């Protein structure tokens, strides 16, 4: 066994024996996400970033398997050479972002509504469990119903069941062509427009609405064959953006470098896409209405949560200054909470992996 891996196993076994918490870290670009961990002083840091490298990449199988510490950048470059991509477009918070960190955080980008979310693309994962064993779940094939779908459960679990050691992800061909159009309309119109488009076989691969100098602006990206783009552009209308301008815009949205994301606190509301305008303040809407970023420093957290819940969604305190007065994640229902606690107890009986990261008391 490779030294880096055996070191990680040793660290887990030692921490378990000495009842010390473990903080799992990849590229260190997502410390802001989730609850801040007050245990840091006594904790061992399990750094996965040294365990890197692509294990298997077969373009014609549409799958890549990589060690969890492999930089996201490296994987995207490799896929790009074969005109393939990670279709869920995970945000790149920094050059050191790792693929394991992406899967553990479970965040998806602008293409999510067309392509699917990160968890949809997870085919396999190796977990270093609380006893120090390496457990392999799923694999490199797209259809696999042998046992429970553990890899997808690990996606977005923020490391509470242990560190990911390697992951297998389904990849997708890059679209033949893309075009971005811009239309002017208010929030209500934009949301109604999304509902109308959902009924039509349009190749919409990203959308974003927000106000620029008091004017509502909707940008829509289309992906597909030239024939499909031509007919879609004709039915949607609007002003076509230049390729470079469009690329910069969707990258800024994906990587959250657009100035809108500088607001603190920044709320991330995930709601059924057909929900009406929430009327909470300054918003940037993605995912055809399903994702609504809210930048309003004055608003009461409880008010935001209730508004999201009223429409069947949830609100995450995504970015904030200082210690927030409320949990960053929307409290799940008591039933989900009970199952979550039992799973944590089953998989990590001493509670050593990333304590408090997902929920403060977990």
């Amino acid at each position, binding site marked *: 066994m490779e030294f880096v891996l055996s070191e990680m196993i040793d660290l887990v076994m030692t921490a378990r024996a000495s009842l010390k918490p473990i903080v799992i870290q990849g590229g260190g670009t997502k410390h802001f996400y989730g609850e801040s961990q007050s245990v840091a002083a006594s904790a061992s840091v399990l750094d996965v970033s040294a365990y890197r490298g692509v294990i298997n990449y077969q373009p014609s199988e549409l799958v890549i398997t990589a060690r969890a510490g492999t930089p996201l950048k490296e994987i995207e470059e490799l896929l790009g050479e074969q005109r393939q991509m990670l279709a869920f477009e995970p945000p790149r918070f920094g050059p050191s972002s790792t693929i394991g960190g992406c899967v553990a955080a479970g965040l998806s980008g602008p293409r999510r509504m067309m392509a699917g979310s990160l968890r949809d693309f997870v085919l396999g994962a190796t977990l270093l469990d609380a006893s120090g064993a390496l457990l392999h779940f799923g694999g490199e*094939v797209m259809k*696999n119903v042998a046992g429970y779908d*553990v890899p997808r459960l690990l996606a977005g679990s923020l490391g509470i069941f242990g560190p990911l050691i390697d992951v297998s992800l389904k990849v997708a061909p890059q679209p033949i062509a893309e075009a971005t159009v811009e239309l002017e309309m208010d929030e209500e119109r934009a949301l109604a427009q999304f509902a109308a488009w959902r009924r039509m076989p349009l190749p919409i691969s990203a959308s974003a609405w927000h106000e620029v100098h008091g004017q509502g602006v909707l940008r829509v990206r289309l992906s597909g064959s030239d024939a499909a783009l031509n007919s879609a552009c004709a039915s949607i209308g609007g002003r076509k953006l230049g390729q470079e301008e469009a690329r910069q815009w969707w990258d800024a949205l994906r990587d959250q470098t657009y100035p809108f994301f500088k607001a603190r606190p920044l709320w991330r509301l995930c709601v059924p896409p057909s929900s009406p305008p929430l009327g909470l303040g300054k918003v940037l809407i993605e995912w055809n209405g399903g994702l609504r970023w809210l930048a309003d420093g004055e608003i009461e957290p409880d008010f935001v949560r209730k508004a999201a819940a009223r429409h069947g969604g949830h609100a995450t305190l995504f970015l904030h200054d200082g210690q927030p007065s409320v949990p960053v994640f929307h409290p799940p229902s008591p039933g989900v909470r009970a199952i979550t606690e039992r799973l944590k107890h089953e998989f990590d009986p001493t509670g050593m992996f990333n304590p408090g990261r997902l929920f403060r008391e977990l």
Partner: protein
Amino acid sequence: MSTHVSHSAMSADFSGLLKRLASRLPAHCILTRNEDTRPYECDGLSLFRENPPVVVLPEDEFQVVEVVQACRAFDIPIVARGAGTGLSGGATPHAQGVLLGLAKLNRILKIDVDSATAVVEPGVRNLAISDAAASHGLYYAPDPSSQIACSIGGNIAENSGGVHCLKYGLTVHNVLRVRIVTSDGEIVELGSEAPDSPGLDLLAAFVGSEGMLGIVTQATVKLIPRPACARVIMASFPSVESAGEAVANIIATGIIPAGLEMMDKRATHMVEPFVQAGYDLDADAILLCESDGTPEEVEDEIGRMKAVFAAAGASRLQVSASEEERLRFWAGRKNAFPAAGRVSPDYYCMDGTIPRRHLARVLNTIVEMEEIFGLRCANVFHAGDGNLHPLILFDANIPEQVDRAERFGAAILELCVEVGGTITGEHGVGVEKINQMCVQFSRQELDFFLALKRGFDPHGLLNPEKVVPTLARCAEYGRMHVHAGELRFPELPRF
């Protein structure tokens, strides 16, 4: 090999349970007479039979909760059942348990056109969702071949696929939310109509859990616009290798076909007399490759697909010119299982998935195995996603052939695991493949599954003793086969 168990003696627990159920549910929802419970003794895999002591057929969620709470109070196991079309014995009754049939929960509660979703009860048939959404130009994408009969609750339990899942995904990609009753009798919602939910993705773990984690009483599924046009290419290849290469090249070119299926020569010769699909009987392998979208997109994509096939050495290319012809091309593939039942007294259907690059190696090894085991094997293959369905032909009246068929099947599944694949792509483990789980997973991995089950079902009441083998079970490792005469709904096309 078949397990035929008579009504187990009604224990004191059962009389207590029945008394409680009788006070909470209408009498017609509770079946205990032998002639009433007998139809529930098996699912689509009729090899495994167990006449359930009690069958309960609730009519709404409230009654499901009543049944589960009653079973919890008397510590009696529950096996949930949808339409009973499953192929791995996932709904095989428990000798000391309640068989909970959900077929009466069959209402489509809402088709929401604005959000392109449908809210349905678990007993709604897969195809009924698409039928209800059709007037809005929408449909539910996953299309297991038993879709005319199978229920959405069963699809969720098995994470069902279909021929279009390379492009449109499996059940897990198309279900947004489920409402379940836990073994405590509590109602919990997993997932939501929003694109994601706070905390762990419990819905992802729940889909495909074969009725072991909770009982679905309601689901929200995603609907998508029906493509304006679909056409299929039928391509002949002189060898399995060249057909396999053509598949790899299609994907490498950046095309994701709506469907991509392969049949070997044995399979085409088996189905052609049965359906007259017009298959090329001289070809060693044929591919069916579908494109869908706007007419312009389809024309463009079909052109590119044809070029790839021609370059890979296709000896004949035909493109469906009409919807009728498209369906005829597909008919042979969809009827491969019934056709196997016509040419052979019995067949044993496997469901392994392999990385596609090992296709030629696996198929050639299967040909060698035909010699070793002295039995024929026809191969149909979801080429797009690597899901292989070898059909081993044998005669169950010759006991020695049964044994050979079982060993042949086991050898194929072990080969699938060996090349980096899995023992089941879409039919599930159920009771049928529980032994092969010992081959694919380590003891620690199997224990992780058992721990996951405890997390959802701490009392172990839901579909116990399925899917995850115990230590003792792995030790005694055996295998089973499908007897064509015992396959229920033989008229249904199957994958």
